[in-house]
Protein backbone atom coordinates (compact mmCIF):
# COMPACT_ATOMS: atom_id res chain seq x y z
CA UNK A 1 0.00 0.00 0.00
CA UNK A 2 1.39 3.30 -1.12
CA UNK A 3 0.24 6.80 -0.22
CA UNK A 4 1.56 9.97 -1.86
CA UNK A 5 4.49 7.98 -3.20
CA UNK A 6 5.49 6.50 0.17
CA UNK A 7 5.15 2.75 0.80
CA UNK A 8 3.10 2.29 3.96
CA UNK A 9 2.56 -1.43 4.17
CA UNK A 10 3.64 -4.62 2.43
CA UNK A 11 2.62 -8.22 2.74
CA UNK A 12 3.60 -10.46 -0.12
CA UNK A 13 2.56 -13.75 1.39
CA UNK A 14 -1.07 -13.24 2.35
CA UNK A 15 -3.95 -14.18 0.07
CA UNK A 16 -6.23 -11.34 -1.00
CA UNK A 17 -8.70 -11.64 1.87
CA UNK A 18 -5.98 -11.92 4.51
CA UNK A 19 -4.16 -8.99 2.99
CA UNK A 20 -7.23 -6.80 3.53
CA UNK A 21 -7.49 -7.95 7.12
CA UNK A 22 -3.81 -7.32 7.83
CA UNK A 23 -4.18 -3.76 6.53
CA UNK A 24 -7.15 -3.24 8.82
CA UNK A 25 -5.10 -4.51 11.76
CA UNK A 26 -1.89 -2.71 10.79
CA UNK A 27 -3.58 0.69 10.80
CA UNK A 28 -5.47 -0.19 14.00
CA UNK A 29 -8.78 0.68 12.40
CA UNK A 30 -11.92 0.13 14.36
CA UNK A 31 -15.13 -0.15 12.36
CA UNK A 32 -17.18 -3.27 13.15
CA UNK A 33 -19.12 -2.94 9.87
CA UNK A 34 -15.86 -3.74 8.09
CA UNK A 35 -16.31 -7.43 8.85
CA UNK A 36 -19.72 -7.53 7.16
CA UNK A 37 -18.47 -6.04 3.92
CA UNK A 38 -17.70 -7.95 0.74
CA UNK A 39 -14.13 -7.87 -0.59
CA UNK A 40 -14.74 -4.96 -2.97
CA UNK A 41 -16.19 -2.82 -0.19
CA UNK A 42 -13.38 -3.79 2.20
CA UNK A 43 -10.81 -2.84 -0.40
CA UNK A 44 -12.50 0.48 -1.14
CA UNK A 45 -13.21 1.32 2.48
CA UNK A 46 -9.63 0.57 3.59
CA UNK A 47 -8.12 2.54 0.73
CA UNK A 48 -10.36 5.53 1.40
CA UNK A 49 -9.51 5.42 5.12
CA UNK A 50 -5.79 5.54 4.39
CA UNK A 51 -6.29 8.14 1.65
CA UNK A 52 -8.26 10.51 3.84
CA UNK A 53 -6.48 10.03 7.18
CA UNK A 54 -4.45 13.07 8.19
CA UNK A 55 -5.38 14.73 4.92
CA UNK A 56 -8.99 15.45 5.06
CA UNK A 57 -10.73 17.34 7.78
CA UNK A 58 -14.23 16.03 8.40
CA UNK A 59 -16.64 18.91 8.04
CA UNK A 60 -14.26 21.02 5.95
CA UNK A 61 -16.88 21.06 3.22
CA UNK A 62 -20.68 20.77 3.29
CA UNK A 63 -21.69 17.05 3.07
CA UNK A 64 -23.70 17.79 -0.11
CA UNK A 65 -20.56 19.06 -1.80
CA UNK A 66 -18.46 15.97 -1.19
CA UNK A 67 -18.78 13.00 -3.53
CA UNK A 68 -17.28 9.78 -4.87
CA UNK A 69 -16.75 8.81 -8.54
CA UNK A 70 -15.31 5.33 -9.15
CA UNK A 71 -14.71 2.88 -11.95
CA UNK A 72 -13.90 -0.80 -12.16
CA UNK A 73 -14.00 -3.67 -14.59
CA UNK A 74 -15.41 -6.69 -12.77
CA UNK A 75 -18.39 -4.94 -11.20
CA UNK A 76 -19.41 -6.93 -8.09
CA UNK A 77 -18.72 -10.35 -9.64
CA UNK A 78 -16.57 -11.46 -6.69
CA UNK A 79 -19.60 -11.18 -4.41
CA UNK A 80 -22.09 -12.22 -7.14
CA UNK A 81 -20.49 -15.67 -7.25
CA UNK A 82 -20.60 -16.02 -3.46
CA UNK A 83 -24.22 -14.87 -3.37
CA UNK A 84 -25.28 -17.31 -6.06
CA UNK A 85 -23.57 -20.15 -4.19
CA UNK A 86 -25.81 -19.26 -1.22
CA UNK A 87 -28.93 -19.50 -3.42
CA UNK A 88 -28.38 -23.25 -3.73
CA UNK A 89 -29.03 -23.46 0.00
CA UNK A 90 -30.78 -20.36 1.37
CA UNK A 91 -30.35 -17.08 -0.50
CA UNK A 92 -28.38 -14.72 1.72
CA UNK A 93 -29.67 -11.14 1.89
CA UNK A 94 -26.39 -9.99 3.43
CA UNK A 95 -24.49 -11.27 0.39
CA UNK A 96 -27.17 -10.05 -2.06
CA UNK A 97 -26.86 -6.43 -0.97
CA UNK A 98 -23.23 -6.40 -2.11
CA UNK A 99 -24.12 -7.68 -5.60
CA UNK A 100 -24.05 -4.09 -6.84
CA UNK A 101 -20.74 -2.38 -7.59
CA UNK A 102 -21.87 0.98 -6.17
CA UNK A 103 -22.40 -0.35 -2.65
CA UNK A 104 -18.77 0.36 -1.81
CA UNK A 105 -19.46 4.02 -2.61
CA UNK A 106 -22.34 3.88 -0.14
CA UNK A 107 -19.95 2.48 2.48
CA UNK A 108 -17.42 5.27 1.91
CA UNK A 109 -20.20 7.88 2.01
CA UNK A 110 -21.64 6.50 5.26
CA UNK A 111 -18.21 6.51 6.91
CA UNK A 112 -17.40 10.09 5.86
CA UNK A 113 -20.89 11.60 5.65
CA UNK A 114 -20.42 12.40 1.97
CA UNK A 115 -23.84 13.27 0.55
CA UNK A 116 -23.11 14.73 -2.86
CA UNK A 117 -22.76 13.35 -6.37
CA UNK A 118 -21.71 9.81 -6.93
CA UNK A 119 -21.33 7.36 -9.79
CA UNK A 120 -19.87 3.97 -10.62
CA UNK A 121 -18.65 3.34 -14.17
CA UNK A 122 -17.61 0.01 -15.66
CA UNK A 123 -14.54 0.16 -17.91
CA UNK A 124 -12.23 -2.33 -19.66
CA UNK A 125 -9.34 -0.61 -17.95
CA UNK A 126 -8.82 2.57 -15.95
CA UNK A 127 -9.73 5.51 -18.20
CA UNK A 128 -8.05 8.43 -16.47
CA UNK A 129 -9.14 10.87 -19.17
CA UNK A 130 -12.80 10.05 -18.63
CA UNK A 131 -12.36 10.32 -14.85
CA UNK A 132 -10.69 13.70 -15.21
CA UNK A 133 -13.54 14.92 -17.40
CA UNK A 134 -16.26 13.66 -15.03
CA UNK A 135 -14.72 15.06 -11.85
CA UNK A 136 -13.72 18.36 -13.46
CA UNK A 137 -17.31 18.87 -14.59
CA UNK A 138 -18.46 18.51 -10.98
CA UNK A 139 -15.73 20.75 -9.57
CA UNK A 140 -15.84 23.42 -12.29
CA UNK A 141 -19.62 23.74 -12.06
CA UNK A 142 -19.43 24.14 -8.30
CA UNK A 143 -21.39 20.92 -7.76
CA UNK A 144 -18.64 19.43 -5.57
CA UNK A 145 -15.88 20.94 -3.41
CA UNK A 146 -14.14 17.62 -2.80
CA UNK A 147 -14.28 14.26 -4.50
CA UNK A 148 -12.75 10.84 -3.96
CA UNK A 149 -12.25 9.26 -7.35
CA UNK A 150 -10.38 6.45 -8.99
CA UNK A 151 -10.26 2.73 -9.64
CA UNK A 152 -11.37 -0.14 -7.46
CA UNK A 153 -11.50 -3.73 -8.64
CA UNK A 154 -11.57 -7.07 -6.85
CA UNK A 155 -12.14 -10.55 -8.29
CA UNK A 156 -10.92 -13.87 -6.92
CA UNK A 157 -7.29 -13.18 -5.94
CA UNK A 158 -6.78 -10.20 -8.21
CA UNK A 159 -7.38 -6.70 -6.96
CA UNK A 160 -6.26 -3.14 -7.36
CA UNK A 161 -7.31 0.12 -5.76
CA UNK A 162 -6.06 3.56 -6.79
CA UNK A 163 -8.01 6.38 -5.18
CA UNK A 164 -7.40 10.10 -5.52
CA UNK A 165 -8.65 12.92 -3.33
CA UNK A 166 -9.53 15.99 -5.40
CA UNK A 167 -10.18 19.23 -3.53
CA UNK A 168 -10.88 22.87 -4.27
CA UNK A 169 -8.41 23.88 -1.56
CA UNK A 170 -4.81 23.11 -2.45
CA UNK A 171 -2.75 21.24 0.17
CA UNK A 172 1.06 21.06 0.69
CA UNK A 173 1.46 17.84 -1.26
CA UNK A 174 -1.19 18.53 -3.90
CA UNK A 175 -0.61 17.64 -7.52
CA UNK A 176 -2.62 19.01 -10.41
CA UNK A 177 -5.64 16.78 -11.02
CA UNK A 178 -4.96 15.50 -14.51
CA UNK A 179 -5.17 12.43 -16.69
CA UNK A 180 -1.37 12.32 -16.90
CA UNK A 181 -0.79 12.52 -13.14
CA UNK A 182 -3.45 9.88 -12.46
CA UNK A 183 -2.00 7.54 -15.07
CA UNK A 184 1.51 8.10 -13.74
CA UNK A 185 0.45 7.06 -10.24
CA UNK A 186 -1.83 4.26 -11.43
CA UNK A 187 0.76 2.66 -13.70
CA UNK A 188 3.70 2.88 -11.32
CA UNK A 189 2.15 0.62 -8.69
CA UNK A 190 0.85 -2.93 -8.73
CA UNK A 191 -0.14 -5.05 -11.67
CA UNK A 192 -2.11 -3.50 -14.48
Amino acid at each position, binding site marked *: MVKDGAALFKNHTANAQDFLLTIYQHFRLSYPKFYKMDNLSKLGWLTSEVLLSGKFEAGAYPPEKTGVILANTNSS*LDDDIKYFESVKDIASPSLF*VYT*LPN*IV*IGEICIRNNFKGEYALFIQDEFDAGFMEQQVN*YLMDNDILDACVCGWLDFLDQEYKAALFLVEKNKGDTSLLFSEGNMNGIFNSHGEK
Partner: protein
Amino acid sequence: MSEPDVFVVADNIFSPLGKTTAENFTRLKQGLYAVKEHNDPDISTASFFASLFDKHEVFLERNTGNYTKFELLLIASITNAIEQSDIDPVDKKTVLIISSTKGNISLLETETYNAELKKKISLSHSANLISAHFGFVNRPVIISNACISGVLAIITGLRLLRSGQYENAVIAGADVISKFIFSGFQSFQALSQQICKPFDKWRDGLNLGEGAATVILSTDKKHKGNMTVKGGAVSNDANHISGPSRTGKELTYAINKSMDDSGVSAADIDFISAHGTATIFNDEMEANAITMAGLQNVPVNSLKGYYGHTLGAAGLVESVISIQSLKQGLVFPTAGFQELDKNMNISVCASVLPIKAKNFIKTASGFGGCNAAIVVGE
Protein backbone atom coordinates in the same frame (compact mmCIF):
# COMPACT_ATOMS: atom_id res chain seq x y z
CA MET B 1 -19.96 30.45 -22.67
CA SER B 2 -23.46 29.36 -21.80
CA GLU B 3 -24.26 25.67 -21.91
CA PRO B 4 -26.08 24.38 -24.98
CA ASP B 5 -29.62 23.01 -24.81
CA VAL B 6 -29.78 19.22 -24.80
CA PHE B 7 -32.65 18.00 -27.01
CA VAL B 8 -34.45 14.68 -26.90
CA VAL B 9 -34.18 13.46 -30.49
CA ALA B 10 -35.69 9.97 -30.37
CA ASP B 11 -36.59 7.25 -27.90
CA ASN B 12 -37.74 3.67 -27.55
CA ILE B 13 -39.22 1.33 -24.99
CA PHE B 14 -38.84 -2.38 -25.66
CA SER B 15 -40.95 -4.15 -23.05
CA PRO B 16 -43.38 -7.05 -22.76
CA LEU B 17 -46.08 -4.43 -23.47
CA GLY B 18 -44.68 -3.31 -26.80
CA LYS B 19 -41.64 -2.84 -28.99
CA THR B 20 -41.84 0.89 -29.60
CA THR B 21 -42.61 3.95 -27.51
CA ALA B 22 -45.88 4.40 -29.41
CA GLU B 23 -46.96 0.79 -28.80
CA ASN B 24 -46.17 1.10 -25.10
CA PHE B 25 -48.03 4.39 -24.75
CA THR B 26 -51.06 2.98 -26.54
CA ARG B 27 -51.14 -0.08 -24.26
CA LEU B 28 -50.96 2.13 -21.17
CA LYS B 29 -53.83 4.23 -22.55
CA GLN B 30 -55.79 0.99 -22.90
CA GLY B 31 -55.10 0.35 -19.23
CA LEU B 32 -52.97 -2.75 -19.89
CA TYR B 33 -50.32 -4.01 -17.45
CA ALA B 34 -47.22 -6.04 -18.27
CA VAL B 35 -47.09 -7.32 -14.68
CA LYS B 36 -48.92 -10.63 -14.34
CA GLU B 37 -48.68 -13.98 -12.61
CA HIS B 38 -45.98 -16.34 -13.88
CA ASN B 39 -45.04 -19.94 -13.28
CA ASP B 40 -41.41 -20.39 -14.17
CA PRO B 41 -39.40 -22.92 -12.17
CA ASP B 42 -36.17 -21.51 -13.66
CA ILE B 43 -36.88 -18.34 -11.66
CA SER B 44 -38.89 -19.49 -8.66
CA THR B 45 -40.49 -22.69 -7.37
CA ALA B 46 -43.69 -20.81 -6.44
CA SER B 47 -45.72 -18.67 -8.83
CA PHE B 48 -44.95 -14.96 -8.77
CA PHE B 49 -45.94 -11.58 -10.23
CA ALA B 50 -43.52 -9.92 -12.63
CA SER B 51 -43.29 -8.34 -16.07
CA LEU B 52 -41.46 -10.84 -18.28
CA PHE B 53 -41.04 -11.48 -21.98
CA ASP B 54 -42.49 -14.64 -23.41
CA LYS B 55 -39.87 -17.41 -23.26
CA HIS B 56 -40.06 -17.85 -27.04
CA GLU B 57 -39.95 -14.17 -27.87
CA VAL B 58 -37.67 -13.43 -30.84
CA PHE B 59 -35.81 -10.18 -30.22
CA LEU B 60 -33.80 -10.08 -33.42
CA GLU B 61 -34.73 -11.92 -36.63
CA ARG B 62 -31.23 -13.20 -37.33
CA ASN B 63 -29.11 -13.40 -34.20
CA THR B 64 -25.90 -13.81 -36.14
CA GLY B 65 -23.81 -12.30 -33.37
CA ASN B 66 -24.88 -15.02 -30.93
CA TYR B 67 -25.96 -12.28 -28.54
CA THR B 68 -27.45 -12.97 -25.11
CA LYS B 69 -31.00 -11.89 -24.22
CA PHE B 70 -29.62 -8.86 -22.37
CA GLU B 71 -27.62 -7.77 -25.41
CA LEU B 72 -30.53 -8.46 -27.79
CA LEU B 73 -32.85 -6.26 -25.74
CA LEU B 74 -30.40 -3.40 -25.97
CA ILE B 75 -29.81 -3.94 -29.68
CA ALA B 76 -33.56 -4.04 -30.40
CA SER B 77 -34.21 -0.87 -28.41
CA ILE B 78 -31.26 1.08 -29.81
CA THR B 79 -32.08 0.00 -33.39
CA ASN B 80 -35.60 1.35 -33.14
CA ALA B 81 -34.50 4.64 -31.57
CA ILE B 82 -31.76 5.22 -34.15
CA GLU B 83 -34.20 4.47 -37.00
CA GLN B 84 -36.31 7.42 -35.91
CA SER B 85 -33.38 9.83 -35.93
CA ASP B 86 -30.63 10.85 -38.31
CA ILE B 87 -27.98 10.06 -35.69
CA ASP B 88 -24.99 8.28 -37.17
CA PRO B 89 -23.29 5.90 -34.71
CA VAL B 90 -20.10 6.08 -36.78
CA ASP B 91 -19.90 9.85 -36.21
CA LYS B 92 -17.09 10.61 -33.76
CA LYS B 93 -19.32 13.20 -32.11
CA THR B 94 -21.70 10.43 -30.97
CA VAL B 95 -21.28 8.47 -27.72
CA LEU B 96 -23.04 5.31 -26.55
CA ILE B 97 -24.02 5.10 -22.88
CA ILE B 98 -25.21 1.76 -21.44
CA SER B 99 -27.02 1.39 -18.13
CA SER B 100 -27.62 -1.91 -16.32
CA THR B 101 -27.56 -3.26 -12.81
CA LYS B 102 -26.81 -6.91 -13.55
CA GLY B 103 -26.39 -7.32 -17.33
CA ASN B 104 -25.56 -10.93 -18.19
CA ILE B 105 -25.57 -12.21 -14.60
CA SER B 106 -28.02 -15.00 -15.52
CA LEU B 107 -25.12 -16.78 -17.25
CA LEU B 108 -23.87 -17.71 -13.76
CA GLU B 109 -26.97 -19.91 -13.49
CA THR B 110 -26.35 -22.02 -16.58
CA GLU B 111 -22.63 -21.93 -17.31
CA THR B 112 -19.47 -23.01 -15.54
CA TYR B 113 -17.43 -20.25 -13.98
CA ASN B 114 -14.15 -19.90 -15.84
CA ALA B 115 -12.11 -17.22 -17.58
CA GLU B 116 -14.41 -17.19 -20.59
CA LEU B 117 -17.56 -16.77 -18.54
CA LYS B 118 -15.87 -14.05 -16.52
CA LYS B 119 -15.42 -12.13 -19.76
CA LYS B 120 -18.92 -12.85 -21.15
CA ILE B 121 -20.54 -11.71 -17.92
CA SER B 122 -18.78 -8.36 -17.81
CA LEU B 123 -20.77 -5.30 -18.81
CA SER B 124 -17.85 -3.96 -20.82
CA HIS B 125 -17.88 -7.09 -22.97
CA SER B 126 -21.60 -6.62 -23.73
CA ALA B 127 -21.17 -2.89 -24.31
CA ASN B 128 -18.29 -3.52 -26.72
CA LEU B 129 -20.36 -6.07 -28.67
CA ILE B 130 -23.29 -3.67 -28.92
CA SER B 131 -21.02 -0.81 -29.84
CA ALA B 132 -19.46 -2.90 -32.63
CA HIS B 133 -22.91 -4.02 -33.83
CA PHE B 134 -23.82 -0.41 -34.60
CA GLY B 135 -20.32 0.78 -35.46
CA PHE B 136 -19.95 3.38 -32.70
CA VAL B 137 -16.39 4.70 -32.83
CA ASN B 138 -16.04 6.06 -29.29
CA ARG B 139 -15.51 3.87 -26.25
CA PRO B 140 -18.93 3.19 -24.68
CA VAL B 141 -19.66 4.66 -21.24
CA ILE B 142 -21.16 2.06 -18.87
CA ILE B 143 -23.10 2.89 -15.73
CA SER B 144 -23.99 0.35 -13.06
CA ASN B 145 -25.34 2.25 -10.14
CA ALA B 146 -28.21 0.19 -8.72
CA CYS B 147 -31.71 1.51 -9.33
CA ILE B 148 -30.66 5.03 -10.29
CA SER B 149 -28.60 3.71 -13.23
CA GLY B 150 -31.08 4.82 -15.92
CA VAL B 151 -31.54 8.35 -14.56
CA LEU B 152 -27.80 8.63 -13.91
CA ALA B 153 -27.14 7.55 -17.50
CA ILE B 154 -29.30 10.46 -18.73
CA ILE B 155 -27.48 12.85 -16.37
CA THR B 156 -24.12 11.55 -17.59
CA GLY B 157 -25.20 12.03 -21.20
CA LEU B 158 -26.48 15.53 -20.41
CA ARG B 159 -23.14 16.52 -18.89
CA LEU B 160 -21.02 14.98 -21.65
CA LEU B 161 -23.05 16.97 -24.20
CA ARG B 162 -23.10 20.18 -22.21
CA SER B 163 -19.35 20.15 -21.80
CA GLY B 164 -18.97 19.81 -25.56
CA GLN B 165 -17.25 16.42 -25.35
CA TYR B 166 -19.82 14.98 -27.76
CA GLU B 167 -22.76 16.29 -29.78
CA ASN B 168 -25.03 13.21 -29.59
CA ALA B 169 -25.58 10.58 -26.93
CA VAL B 170 -27.39 7.28 -27.44
CA ILE B 171 -28.39 6.23 -23.93
CA ALA B 172 -29.78 2.71 -23.47
CA GLY B 173 -30.57 0.63 -20.41
CA ALA B 174 -31.71 -2.95 -19.89
CA ASP B 175 -32.00 -5.70 -17.33
CA VAL B 176 -33.18 -9.32 -17.53
CA ILE B 177 -34.93 -11.05 -14.66
CA SER B 178 -33.59 -14.45 -13.69
CA LYS B 179 -33.23 -16.56 -10.58
CA PHE B 180 -30.20 -14.56 -9.42
CA ILE B 181 -32.10 -11.26 -9.17
CA PHE B 182 -35.43 -12.76 -8.17
CA SER B 183 -34.00 -14.81 -5.28
CA GLY B 184 -32.13 -11.77 -4.00
CA PHE B 185 -35.18 -9.53 -3.82
CA GLN B 186 -37.09 -12.43 -2.33
CA SER B 187 -34.40 -12.88 0.36
CA PHE B 188 -34.98 -9.22 1.22
CA GLN B 189 -38.71 -9.91 1.49
CA ALA B 190 -39.13 -7.06 -0.94
CA LEU B 191 -41.48 -8.77 -3.41
CA SER B 192 -45.26 -8.40 -3.53
CA GLN B 193 -47.46 -11.47 -4.09
CA GLN B 194 -49.77 -9.38 -6.29
CA ILE B 195 -49.57 -6.37 -8.60
CA CYS B 196 -47.66 -3.80 -6.56
CA LYS B 197 -49.40 -0.81 -4.98
CA PRO B 198 -47.12 2.23 -5.02
CA PHE B 199 -47.89 4.84 -2.32
CA ASP B 200 -50.93 2.84 -1.20
CA LYS B 201 -51.62 2.21 2.48
CA TRP B 202 -51.64 -1.53 1.75
CA ARG B 203 -48.49 -1.65 -0.35
CA ASP B 204 -46.42 -4.71 0.40
CA GLY B 205 -43.46 -4.78 -1.92
CA LEU B 206 -42.36 -4.56 -5.52
CA ASN B 207 -42.68 -6.56 -8.74
CA LEU B 208 -39.64 -7.15 -10.91
CA GLY B 209 -39.73 -6.44 -14.62
CA GLU B 210 -37.52 -6.83 -17.65
CA GLY B 211 -37.09 -4.60 -20.64
CA ALA B 212 -34.97 -2.03 -22.34
CA ALA B 213 -35.30 1.62 -23.24
CA THR B 214 -33.29 4.16 -25.20
CA VAL B 215 -33.14 7.94 -25.29
CA ILE B 216 -31.12 9.82 -27.89
CA LEU B 217 -29.96 13.30 -26.90
CA SER B 218 -28.33 15.94 -29.06
CA THR B 219 -27.09 19.52 -28.80
CA ASP B 220 -27.53 20.07 -32.55
CA LYS B 221 -29.66 23.21 -32.88
CA LYS B 222 -31.66 21.71 -35.75
CA HIS B 223 -33.62 19.86 -33.08
CA LYS B 224 -34.83 23.14 -31.54
CA GLY B 225 -38.48 22.75 -30.62
CA ASN B 226 -37.96 19.23 -29.26
CA MET B 227 -38.20 18.46 -25.56
CA THR B 228 -35.02 19.20 -23.63
CA VAL B 229 -33.35 17.54 -20.66
CA LYS B 230 -33.00 20.68 -18.57
CA GLY B 231 -30.92 19.48 -15.67
CA GLY B 232 -30.17 16.78 -13.18
CA ALA B 233 -28.48 15.94 -9.89
CA VAL B 234 -27.39 12.98 -7.76
CA SER B 235 -27.13 12.63 -3.99
CA ASN B 236 -26.26 10.03 -1.39
CA ASP B 237 -28.04 9.31 1.88
CA ALA B 238 -24.86 8.35 3.77
CA ASN B 239 -27.18 6.38 6.01
CA HIS B 240 -27.59 2.71 5.09
CA ILE B 241 -26.52 0.49 2.18
CA SER B 242 -29.85 -1.31 1.76
CA GLY B 243 -32.42 1.03 3.31
CA PRO B 244 -33.41 4.53 2.28
CA SER B 245 -32.80 7.71 4.24
CA ARG B 246 -34.95 8.05 7.35
CA THR B 247 -35.97 11.56 6.37
CA GLY B 248 -35.84 11.83 2.58
CA LYS B 249 -33.73 14.96 2.97
CA GLU B 250 -31.09 13.73 0.53
CA LEU B 251 -33.61 12.96 -2.24
CA THR B 252 -35.06 16.42 -1.62
CA TYR B 253 -31.58 17.78 -2.15
CA ALA B 254 -31.28 15.96 -5.49
CA ILE B 255 -34.73 17.24 -6.56
CA ASN B 256 -33.89 20.82 -5.58
CA LYS B 257 -30.49 20.69 -7.24
CA SER B 258 -32.03 19.31 -10.44
CA MET B 259 -34.51 22.20 -10.49
CA ASP B 260 -31.67 24.73 -9.85
CA ASP B 261 -29.63 23.13 -12.62
CA SER B 262 -32.66 23.47 -14.92
CA GLY B 263 -33.45 27.05 -14.00
CA VAL B 264 -36.97 26.12 -12.89
CA SER B 265 -38.76 26.29 -9.55
CA ALA B 266 -41.31 24.02 -7.89
CA ALA B 267 -44.11 26.12 -9.46
CA ASP B 268 -42.86 25.15 -12.94
CA ILE B 269 -43.17 21.41 -12.34
CA ASP B 270 -46.38 19.93 -13.75
CA PHE B 271 -45.98 16.31 -12.74
CA ILE B 272 -43.55 13.91 -11.10
CA SER B 273 -42.62 10.48 -12.34
CA ALA B 274 -41.59 8.92 -9.05
CA HIS B 275 -39.51 5.83 -8.37
CA GLY B 276 -42.48 4.42 -6.41
CA THR B 277 -41.36 0.82 -6.02
CA ALA B 278 -44.21 0.04 -3.58
CA THR B 279 -41.87 -1.08 -0.82
CA ILE B 280 -42.86 0.30 2.57
CA PHE B 281 -39.70 2.34 3.14
CA ASN B 282 -38.96 3.62 -0.35
CA ASP B 283 -42.39 5.11 -0.94
CA GLU B 284 -42.55 6.79 2.44
CA MET B 285 -39.10 8.31 2.04
CA GLU B 286 -40.02 9.53 -1.44
CA ALA B 287 -43.29 11.07 -0.30
CA ASN B 288 -41.41 12.93 2.44
CA ALA B 289 -38.84 14.17 -0.06
CA ILE B 290 -41.49 15.36 -2.53
CA THR B 291 -43.28 17.26 0.24
CA MET B 292 -40.05 18.82 1.52
CA ALA B 293 -39.28 19.99 -2.01
CA GLY B 294 -42.60 21.88 -2.01
CA LEU B 295 -44.12 19.57 -4.62
CA GLN B 296 -46.85 18.00 -2.48
CA ASN B 297 -49.63 19.36 -4.71
CA VAL B 298 -48.03 18.28 -7.98
CA PRO B 299 -49.49 15.08 -9.53
CA VAL B 300 -47.19 12.11 -8.89
CA ASN B 301 -47.28 8.76 -10.60
CA SER B 302 -45.33 5.52 -10.42
CA LEU B 303 -45.30 3.22 -13.45
CA LYS B 304 -44.06 0.18 -11.50
CA GLY B 305 -47.52 -1.44 -11.54
CA TYR B 306 -47.38 -1.54 -15.35
CA TYR B 307 -43.77 -2.52 -15.94
CA GLY B 308 -42.54 -3.78 -12.60
CA HIS B 309 -39.16 -2.56 -11.44
CA THR B 310 -37.01 -2.81 -14.55
CA LEU B 311 -33.86 -1.94 -12.55
CA GLY B 312 -31.23 -0.45 -14.89
CA ALA B 313 -33.89 0.31 -17.50
CA ALA B 314 -36.43 1.85 -15.09
CA GLY B 315 -35.19 5.45 -15.20
CA LEU B 316 -35.19 5.36 -19.00
CA VAL B 317 -38.55 3.55 -19.43
CA GLU B 318 -40.27 5.97 -17.07
CA SER B 319 -38.61 9.04 -18.60
CA VAL B 320 -39.70 7.98 -22.10
CA ILE B 321 -43.32 7.48 -21.02
CA SER B 322 -43.23 10.84 -19.23
CA ILE B 323 -41.86 12.57 -22.33
CA GLN B 324 -44.86 11.16 -24.25
CA SER B 325 -47.10 12.38 -21.43
CA LEU B 326 -45.78 15.91 -22.00
CA LYS B 327 -46.30 15.61 -25.75
CA GLN B 328 -49.78 14.11 -25.55
CA GLY B 329 -50.99 15.99 -22.46
CA LEU B 330 -51.87 12.85 -20.58
CA VAL B 331 -50.48 11.62 -17.27
CA PHE B 332 -51.08 7.99 -16.37
CA PRO B 333 -52.54 6.88 -13.08
CA THR B 334 -50.46 4.87 -10.62
CA ALA B 335 -51.49 1.30 -11.38
CA GLY B 336 -52.25 -0.60 -8.18
CA PHE B 337 -52.81 2.55 -6.12
CA GLN B 338 -56.14 3.00 -4.31
CA GLU B 339 -55.81 4.74 -0.98
CA LEU B 340 -53.00 7.04 0.08
CA ASP B 341 -50.89 5.99 3.05
CA LYS B 342 -51.95 8.32 5.86
CA ASN B 343 -48.29 9.10 6.58
CA MET B 344 -47.97 10.70 3.17
CA ASN B 345 -49.01 14.11 1.98
CA ILE B 346 -48.62 14.00 -1.79
CA SER B 347 -50.98 14.07 -4.79
CA VAL B 348 -50.83 10.57 -6.24
CA CYS B 349 -52.33 10.37 -9.70
CA ALA B 350 -55.14 7.77 -9.44
CA SER B 351 -56.91 8.18 -12.77
CA VAL B 352 -55.93 9.30 -16.26
CA LEU B 353 -55.11 12.99 -16.00
CA PRO B 354 -55.44 15.24 -19.06
CA ILE B 355 -52.90 17.97 -18.47
CA LYS B 356 -51.25 20.89 -20.21
CA ALA B 357 -47.77 20.20 -18.95
CA LYS B 358 -44.44 21.90 -19.65
CA ASN B 359 -42.05 20.16 -17.28
CA PHE B 360 -41.77 16.98 -15.29
CA ILE B 361 -39.31 15.65 -12.73
CA LYS B 362 -38.19 12.04 -12.83
CA THR B 363 -36.74 10.70 -9.60
CA ALA B 364 -35.00 7.46 -8.65
CA SER B 365 -33.47 5.99 -5.52
CA GLY B 366 -31.65 2.77 -4.84
CA PHE B 367 -29.39 0.51 -2.83
CA GLY B 368 -26.19 2.14 -1.72
CA GLY B 369 -28.24 5.15 -0.59
CA CYS B 370 -28.30 6.76 -4.02
CA ASN B 371 -30.85 9.30 -5.30
CA ALA B 372 -31.13 11.05 -8.65
CA ALA B 373 -33.50 13.50 -10.31
CA ILE B 374 -33.84 15.09 -13.73
CA VAL B 375 -36.10 17.78 -15.16
CA VAL B 376 -37.38 17.37 -18.73
CA GLY B 377 -39.53 19.91 -20.46
CA GLU B 378 -40.41 22.04 -23.44
